[in-house]
């Protein structure tokens, strides 16, 4: 038995014996996703045990070094771990911007002190992070941020406003970009990347209601909030480089979730039986001779299903190419662009399939007695939420700009 096989059987033993079986098959169930934080909540009580088992072994961040709470696994071992988790369709033990965004960025740019302080609290789920990039006047043109940080002894005094802070009201810390040199010649040059504890006096977070009814994002106001100077990531006034690297991680994460492109080896494992749209269409629109009865709808399902497959194959090709030593390019922009559009098209097609049943807003007193099932009500919200996919994390237009410049070499 090779070492890798040995590792696989160890992993399998742990997953089968120590992780509650109730979590199996719930990989994509939002209720089974644990976000961590000082106010950590478990929608399913079993999730706590899984988090503890995983955190003890560093499996919440399999490839991070062990001294920061990671698993210290090689790429190959991490693949094995993921495939074993996938085999039981377990949810990830922990999700959030700590693991996907600020963690990788600290590993790349953070001082030893910052890594030791923050990474273990991310991997254990103790601290939940949010992203303070956008401002009312700095969206796509992110380098136009105006929130100011003025040095006062060993602190910065922060004043200004961030907006669209996803889960700001549930988070404990924010990573943000602030203007530290308003006189810099290029606006990108006067920006610093800062970590801020929300327990600091002078910070106020107000939820904003979304088009889909939920309130997952917020406005965050800073008035004379004092942040220690050692919370700067990278160099003073060189935060733009750090911010852009983080955006790369963010795009990759969004594309993965949207196109479910994270799956390994699509080319071998793809299974058309997993296409929910066809089954749904047969249920809602009817079938004729085993086929979706409406030929136009059937064609649209085939098109979307095919595009999804080709997208996943492209994600795999990029990964296989990287494994073979090819330098990854600006692919994340392509994946962000196409993955989010695919998800929107999928949601739109769901509406077409369910027809008026997809228009329910809420059920009377939480009773699904008014003709809409819980699934259908969720559908309405998912569709509305999906419209944000091509805006958040850099709009589609911005991704096209990046592709044109960095991949196609077109002039400015």
């Amino acid at each position: 038995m090779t070492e890798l096989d040995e590792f696989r059987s160890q992993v399998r033993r742990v997953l089968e014996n120590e992780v509650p079986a109730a979590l199996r098959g719930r990989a994509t169930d939002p209720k089974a996703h644990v976000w961590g934080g000082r106010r950590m909540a478990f929608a399913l009580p079993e999730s706590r045990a899984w988090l503890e088992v995983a955190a003890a072994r560093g499996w919440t961040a399999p490839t991070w070094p062990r001294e920061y709470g990671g698993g210290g696994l090689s790429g190959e071992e991490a693949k094995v771990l993921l495939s074993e988790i996938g085999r039981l369709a377990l949810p990830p033990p922990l999700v959030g911007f700590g693991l996907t965004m600020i963690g990788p960025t600290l590993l790349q740019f953070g001082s030893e002190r910052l890594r030791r302080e923050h990474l273990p609290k991310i991997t254990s789920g103790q601290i939940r992070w949010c992203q303070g990039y956008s401002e009312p006047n700095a969206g796509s043109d992110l380098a136009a941020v105006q929130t100011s940080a003025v040095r006062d002894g060993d602190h910065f005094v922060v004043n200004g406003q961030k907006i669209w802070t996803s889960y700001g009201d549930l988070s404990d810390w924010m990573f943000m970009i602030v203007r530290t040199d308003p006189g810099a010649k290029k606006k990108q040059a006067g920006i610093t990347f800062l970590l801020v504890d929300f327990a600091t006096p002078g910070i106020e977070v107000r939820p904003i209601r979304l088009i889909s009814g939920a309130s997952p994002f917020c406005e965050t106001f800073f008035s004379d909030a004092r942040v220690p100077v050692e919370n700067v990531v990278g160099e003073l006034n060189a935060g733009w480089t750090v911010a852009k690297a983080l955006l790369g991680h963010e795009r990759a994460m969004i594309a993965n979730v949207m196109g479910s492109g994270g799956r390994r080896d699509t080319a071998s494992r793809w299974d058309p039986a997993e296409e929910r749209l066809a089954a749904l269409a047969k249920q809602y629109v009817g079938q004729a001779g085993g086929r979706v009865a409406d030929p136009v709808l059937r064609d649209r399902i085939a098109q979307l299903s095919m595009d999804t497959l080709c997208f996943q194959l492209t994600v795999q090709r990029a990964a296989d190419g990287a494994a073979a030593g090819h330098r990854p390019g600006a692919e994340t922009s392509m994946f962000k662009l196409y993955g989010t559009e695919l998800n929107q098209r999928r949601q739109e097609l769901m509406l077409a399939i369910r027809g008026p049943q997809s228009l329910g807003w809420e059920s009377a007193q939480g009773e699904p007695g008014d003709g809409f099932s819980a699934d259908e009500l969720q559908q309405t919200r998912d569709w509305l939420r999906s419209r944000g996919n091509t805006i958040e994390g850099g709009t589609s237009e911005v991704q096209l700009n990046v592709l044109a410049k960095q991949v196609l070499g077109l002039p400015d």
Partner: protein
Amino acid sequence: MRLALTDDQAILAKTAAAFAAERSPLSRLRALRDPRDSLGYSKDLWSQMAGLGWAAIPFAEEHGGAGLGLAEVVLVTEALGRCLAPEPFLSSVMLAGRALARAGTDAQRAAHLAPIIAGDAVLALALDERGARHDRRITTRAETTAAGGLKLTGVKANVLDGFGADAFVVAVRTSGEPGDAQGITLARVGSRAPGVRVVRQHRVDGRNAALVELTGVEVPASEVVGPVGQGGEVLDEVLDAATVALSGEMVGGMVEALERTLAYLRERVQFGVAIGTFQALKHRAARVFVEIELARSAVMAAARAIDEGSEHRRALVSAAKARASDAYVHAANEAVQMHGGIGMTDEHDIGLFMKRARVAEMTFGDAAYHRDRFATACAF
């Protein structure tokens, strides 16, 4: 299944691209087209390509081939597609040649494969019929003769590289009704056999295609290819592989059309700046790029699915052809638009890609046809 090239494959891709670029500039196409050269391709260049071993790629070693697969074939067709080379790789190797290799007797293989692999003989598959679009209706009739052979009557259309071909593999109906999957038989017919008349068809891409009229053509039993009535299964397999080969060609064509367009966007000046600075055009070019990337992944996966005998190969083949069809037509249309007026002239090369895109799109089934086939394979 890995979607990356092995070292050997990377070398093949490189040499094929270099050879095609050097020996097959686009100017050659006009030289073939304008004097209305009926052949539409160069016999000499085709034997040079065969000399490089390209025609041997998909045949088993015991049949005199190289024993390689579709993963290699698409590297060669991509190189051909980049320079729109009209040589008869699809027709002679992927269609007629592979049908003989797959279904032929030992004697038939021994007699006919070597000249195909050497590039000395060109064979064509006579399959489509007028008005039948991509459905394999097959109305060409075959009666059994007293000697146990067949007597064929019917008209085949859009026979790729049929004009000047040395022989045809013809799909005929020996039983059942037009449209039935069963009852199709394959037979080899020499182009000079009595009752055969070949008429050159001139299509928009200038390539060789022909009408093949068969009037009481007698075929001895020794020239029937494969079991009588079971040619449909042979065709399924042969056409799937040829469809992937063609999709590879299409990827080459769309990549070239985009690259030529990008060069033009950098060079053409209007309003005092390169037109490539205009965001409307940048975004259109970036969308084309994404479509091409998806098509390439699908083609690579389909080729490997066939090579590895995957249970989902049929769906993957249709995904590849549908994506390649949509992407090539899109890339070529956008290329002409972004060239402006010059793109509409016969003199400029970019239009050649648009013409080829359209023919390739409709060969072996267009995108809508393959979406339907994909949906059926997926039980939608």
